[in-house]
């Protein structure tokens, strides 16, 4: 017969693990790089209540699968002006975990960028 303490542990364990896992999987941070002299491409319809308000935002949210011989990859984006105003990438625990358990073959990509405004 199991002691009550041990059976308690069995009840608490999965619960704590779930909480921890969901916290870890959702835990993330982002880094935003911006161009001091750049002028963002405007978007009058972007009413987001943050840094991106009024700016035309491009989002990349995908998982890249690499073949065994491939070690690195490039994302080739297009800005009509030829330059980036800002670039933000997000690192999530889930993304890091995915990379680890697939031995680097699956890379989660969460990027937001704004192009420079076109000018002569």
């Amino acid at each position, binding site marked *: 017969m199991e002691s009550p303490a041990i059976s308690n542990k069995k009840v608490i364990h999965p619960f704590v693990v779930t909480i921890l896992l969901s916290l870890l999987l959702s835990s993330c941070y982002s880094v935003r790089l911006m161009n*001091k*002299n750049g*002028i963002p491409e*405007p978007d*009058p*319809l972007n*009413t987001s*209540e*943050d*840094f991106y*308000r*009024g700016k035309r935002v491009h989002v990349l949210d995908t998982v890249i699968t690499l073949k065994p011989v491939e070690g690195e990859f490039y994302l080739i984006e297009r800005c009509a002006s030829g330059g980036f105003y800002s670039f933000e990438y997000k690192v999530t625990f889930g993304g890091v975990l995915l990379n680890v358990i697939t031995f680097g073959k699956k890379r989660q990509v969460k990027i937001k960028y704004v192009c420079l*405004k*076109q*000018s*002569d």
Partner: protein
Amino acid sequence: MATTVKHEIGSWDTFHNNGPFPTKVLYETLLEAKGNMPSITDRYNDAAAEIQRLIQLALSNREGFRAYGSAWSMSHIAHQKDNMHFNTAMNLKRTIDVDELHPNATYVRENLFFFECGNIIKEINQFLFDNGKSLKTTGASNGQTIAGCVSTGVHGSALDVGSVQDSVVGINLIIGAGIDDIVYLERHTRPALNDVFASRIKARIIRNDDLFKAALVSLGSFGFIHGITVEAENRFLLNRYVKRISKDKALQLAQTLAFEDADFVVEGETDAGGKPLRPYHYKIFINPYVNDTEYVVEAMYKKPYRSGYPDPVPRIKTAIYRDLILLFTSIAERFRNSIPSLIRLLQTSVLPPVDLQVTGTIGEIFWDAGYQGPAYACAVGVDSRDSPKALELLANLAKNEGPIPGLYAMRFVRQSDATLAFTRFPVTCMLEIDGLIWNPQRDNIISLPQFCTRIIEVLQANNIPFTIHWGKNADWSFPGLIEHMYGANAQQWKECRSALLKEETAALFSNRFLQDTGLSEYIVNAPLALAASVV
């Protein structure tokens, strides 16, 4: 061909959520690609034709049409219920050619630049810098369009310089859909560009001081401003200092602006005889809720440009702290759902004891301002000699009939000759109140509209002549407000507008703001000479 994207938006708002306002259509005109039409002049004229097509469409539908820039105005000045035109993709810029200078011009050709309406100040700063030049002044940051700045009269605190519109020497307006409806306005007493320039942009030239001055601060209502000729100057640096000084000294300087004779001495900013230099910029920050014996002031001194100074914009930023007001709004952002706590914080805090010195170009010192959430700004202009009294009255208003979540500031600007410039005193003190929008019911405090009405009533009751920033929050329907502020100039402005525009185009370029202020009135018998060249 320039192309226009049409969005049926239903509702429109300002950058800082001072709306929303019902709006049917938002247009955005995109220039023809450079590769398809390499000449700047061709692309400019091509865009003008597209704007005329949109104007014709609105006229045929008996609707209104209004251009706007970055939507940074907090009043409803930029709003139009039928058709709004977002300009910022119209951003051609160029220098002036040798054959375009007027023979009687007193300007240096290399200082003149022609900007299409949608250029924002930041891109103008950059373009001028690359040409070894600089704007003479800007607002406290750089996101407004040049047409938006001029239309409301944007100012910094350049006490001997003036506002953005005071550097404008020519205005290209599209006032209708006809061949004769592209006009280029200049002062007749100070012409800058000649008929060669006007013919290149297919414009009819009108040289007339009074018309020019009326169209300078046009509130978006003299037609579509397509391009603006600006006089720049050689690039320069500003040494910026933020200091705490005694309240009495700060206010005495506000009243007299006699820096050379005052004992406000900043180390290194003195002449050979040790006398204080006159600053380019002077600003005072005030927390109206604290009876502090000291105020935080910001002074800037103009220096010749040199390279190699430390970059004033740090590499890593958690908050953009260039200005106490911006610092305040970013702190206040955390109290958005608890305005009473924010006010309690204000009531117990003195402004930070900063002693900051940086050096930079105008574009670096008055750099980006991020979105800070729903915000309001009230700004009244008073004669600098009345400024201590006006501050006392309006600070008491906030204390006695508020509190409201906001900080006060005072900036100083030289007089403008624009007919409806709010900088109409020899030196105007812009007394500003900036803060977060609140909910008067939930927070159980006076509402913003009530507070705005009381500002007018208090200044009137105390016989302090004043103006109000066109792009900021105010009780714009207050009876007789415009006549009280501008006297005969209001009539002069309406007459010039009526002489330049046909009745139907005057209605087209009108909006609710103009109706609220009574400035939409069309003077049928306005003398046509008001819109003719004076030779």
